């Protein structure tokens, strides 16, 4: 099994490690870097619990090899809060009861965060489409959509 030395900028900090060719990005993040906020729900790209941003684009880290992230930027749920201040998307999920068991939440927030970066005022349908690759078993999505809308409004109000 080939070994590779990789360097990834994770949540703004340079992180390095030795991985096998087959090591999945999600395992590198969770087990080597101990960033366990990114969860594993299916291994087949269906549930989205493992969603992280790779150079700003949401990817399912259970189907990305760690070596594919070499030299690139990864953002995980641990990177949302800045300087002790919650990101609007985190605040939105908290205020609108957008989570229950919390397992899909990090992936759901990363997908929503990327949506709001690209589209600061999404319609309900656009939010539904954006999160359609992230499964949630607890909430019925209604409050997740409200959470994203809450974040969009907060960002508009503060001009972020």
């Amino acid at each position, binding site marked *: 099994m080939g070994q590779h030395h990789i360097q990834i900028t994770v949540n703004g900090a340079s992180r390095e490690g030795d991985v*096998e060719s*087959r*090591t999945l990005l999600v*395992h590198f993040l*969770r*087990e080597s870097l*101990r*960033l*366990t*906020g*990114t*969860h*594993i*729900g*299916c*291994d*087949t790209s*269906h*549930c989205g*619990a493992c969603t992280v941003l790779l150079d700003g684009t949401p990817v399912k880290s259970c189907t990305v090899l760690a070596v594919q992230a070499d030299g690139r930027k990864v953002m*995980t*749920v*641990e990177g*949302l*809060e800045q300087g002790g201040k*919650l990101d609007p998307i*985190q605040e939105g*999920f*908290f*205020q609108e*009861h957008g*989570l*229950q*068991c*919390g*397992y*899909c*939440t*990090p992936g759901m*927030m990363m997908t929503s965060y990327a949506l709001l970066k690209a589209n600061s005022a999404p319609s309900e349908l656009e*939010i*539904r*489409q954006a*999160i*359609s*690759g*992230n*499964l*949630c*078993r*607890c*909430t*019925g*999505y*209604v*409050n*997740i*959509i409200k959470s994203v809308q809450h974040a969009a409004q907060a960002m508009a109000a503060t001009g972020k």
Partner: protein
Amino acid sequence: MATEPKTSFEVGGMGHSVKRKEDPRFIRGQGNYVDDIQLPGMLHMDIVRSPYAHAKILKIDSSKALKVPGVLAVITGETLAQYKLHWMPTLMSDTQMVLPTDRVMYQAQEVAAVIATDRYTAADGVAAVEVEYEPLPVVTDPFEAMKPGAPVLRTDKEGKKDNHIWHWEAGDRAKTDAASKASDVVVREKIYIPRIHVASIETCGCVADFHPGTGKLTVYMTTQAPHAIRTVFALVAGHVGLSEEKIRIVSPDIGGGFGGKVPVYPGYVIAVAASVVIGKPVKWVEDRMENLQADSFARDYHMEAELAATKDGTMTALKIKTVADHGYADAAANPSKYPAGLFSICTGSYDIPDAFCEVDGVYTNKPPGGVAYRCSFRVTEAAHAIERMVDILAQELKMDPAELRMKNFIPPEKFPYHSALGWEYDSGNYPAALKMAMEMIDYAGLRGEQAEKRKKGELMGIGISSFTEIVGAGPSKHFDILGIKMFDSCELRIHPTGKAMARFGTKSQGQGHETTYAQIIAEELGIPAAHVEVDEGDTDTAPYGLGTYASRSTPTAGAAGAMAARKVRDKARKIAAYLLEVAEEDLVWEPGKFSVKGAPQKSKTIQDIAFAAYTNHPPGMEAGLEAVNYYDPPNLTFPFGSYICVVDIDRGTGEVKIRRFVAIDDCGNIINPMIVDGQIHGGLSMGMAPALMEEITYDENGNNQAGSFMDYLVPTSMETPNWETGKTITPSPHHPFGAKGVGESATVGAPPAIANAVVDALSHLGVKHIDIPITPEKVWNILKAKGVAE
């Protein structure tokens, strides 16, 4: 409808939508789920599974696997047999293999386990284990399994000559038959509720950590019932030296449970055995395919129902005969005296004088189970049967289904109501909930719209479900699991500075106990919910309880919390009397303080009293301020609701689109309205899922046809509508604060509302019944047969 909260928002007692205390860690990615646990020296386990649904095992060759660098051991049934751990009891006192020694009974059954230094190497080891099988005849249909000459599956049971597990019945067969025969109208229907899977987004797993030095076993595991699991482990493994005081079960954050995390799966037991033998921590976390293919399923009920009525629509008799397909073992998690759970709630919300139901459990070559899917013990099956039958009767009588329901509801003044099948319904007001739902959705207007659309050939349907739940098990004279009575518990300690620690025997899996339990204590003592720390899931610290499932947490443990708080208040009153130098009877309680009657300026807050309990307590009184309560409910609780669903059907594709869905729920007094609505949203989604999408089927060889999220369709944000909710409030008369439980109501009530709406859309074409899931394919085939497909 809601009454005004008794406490301020800052105190956050009942009725306040307090934000959840658990959320700050979850939104930061700082939850602590089983797979997040990484212990020094921890090994990983992966499992070899059977490709066959029924086969003899001729040989298991581990030699190549053991040569894989990093593979430390391969565990087989023979290994476990040395310790007599290759079989285990199910929670229904049936038995199932942990690992087989001679045959496999269902596809994906555990065959061997590989222990390795990391998860990738463990998977390499699994791929290198060579197993030779000799396939045996497969039985997947329970009706085939019951025929004479069918292969007998449980050859391990001495003298077993068929595949019948048990027969269970309730009610009076002869009286019901006579009443049915004497009735003007009798409708009959075969209703199948297919096998489904809870598919919580977190799969199951554990980290078993045995310390050879101390003899202590700690198991971090995805369990909804940690205390019961500890006792089961002690009973199963006592003979190899595991004693209950040396076993600690920790249920950390749980990524959804819904009933699927109640049973003991073989993987847990193998990991424990491996850790004990090797003396190192062993982690096992199943993947999604293992989860869908091998863990306990729900439903799989084949029902034949018969509902009789007079010609003016007064219901006279109900009879339901059911075949329950339990797979290879009855691994349900029902109370032991109720092998078919609470199925006898099947008379539902209706005043039906005579009823009879019977259920027969059957073995097949499918994974074991019969657990819940977000519902109290087979209540969903019961509700679906009666709510479908009511619509079929309405169709037969050419009556409006709302009118037929109103006519037959148990009248509000008849509570407590004794049902023909033996339950005492504690409270209810069914007409109020249906009336509210009809007004909220404009039922009359929708019927007008439907008539117009029919003229144009458009297919629109309106479906009602007026369900009754039966939750909160339960009174210990009736309810136990493996003999352990189904009480639940709270241990409450008030610290000197007036803050509290409340520990419970349950375990939240997303329901928000850390918040709602704190609100119960806040309501009873006036200590702000923010200052009440809730702890559950660790058997070394929490008091014994039966766990969280069947919507029992608020009815049992929540009640225990209130009762423990009231004990604390009783002692606080004595201390206050001492501090204020008055008699106890001269004190008045309001949330948070005692004051002297007629002199309200003379008072002591609960915080003053807590401090005094440790610094200045009355002579002769024990110091401290704490209490324990084990709450044994006098009866079950009976949440109910009325749901109305509007669907439009695409004649070109057969797709059913939920246009509107109004859910009126009555769960008694509400602790946190925000959380209750969240529970209902989730429950509705898990009601829609089996109604329209989810089903696990098997081919004739016993191959699972829905073993991944590619084929097992869990609803996404695109199919799920905007749920509209409303409440009526009929407090439970016997619960300490009038609550009833809510987590599962919507999963129980939603499927028949949706099925009734679809059938209603097609009823003018002569369609009487469609089994769930009502997929586009099923609908399109009906449209084609009726000549209306586009």
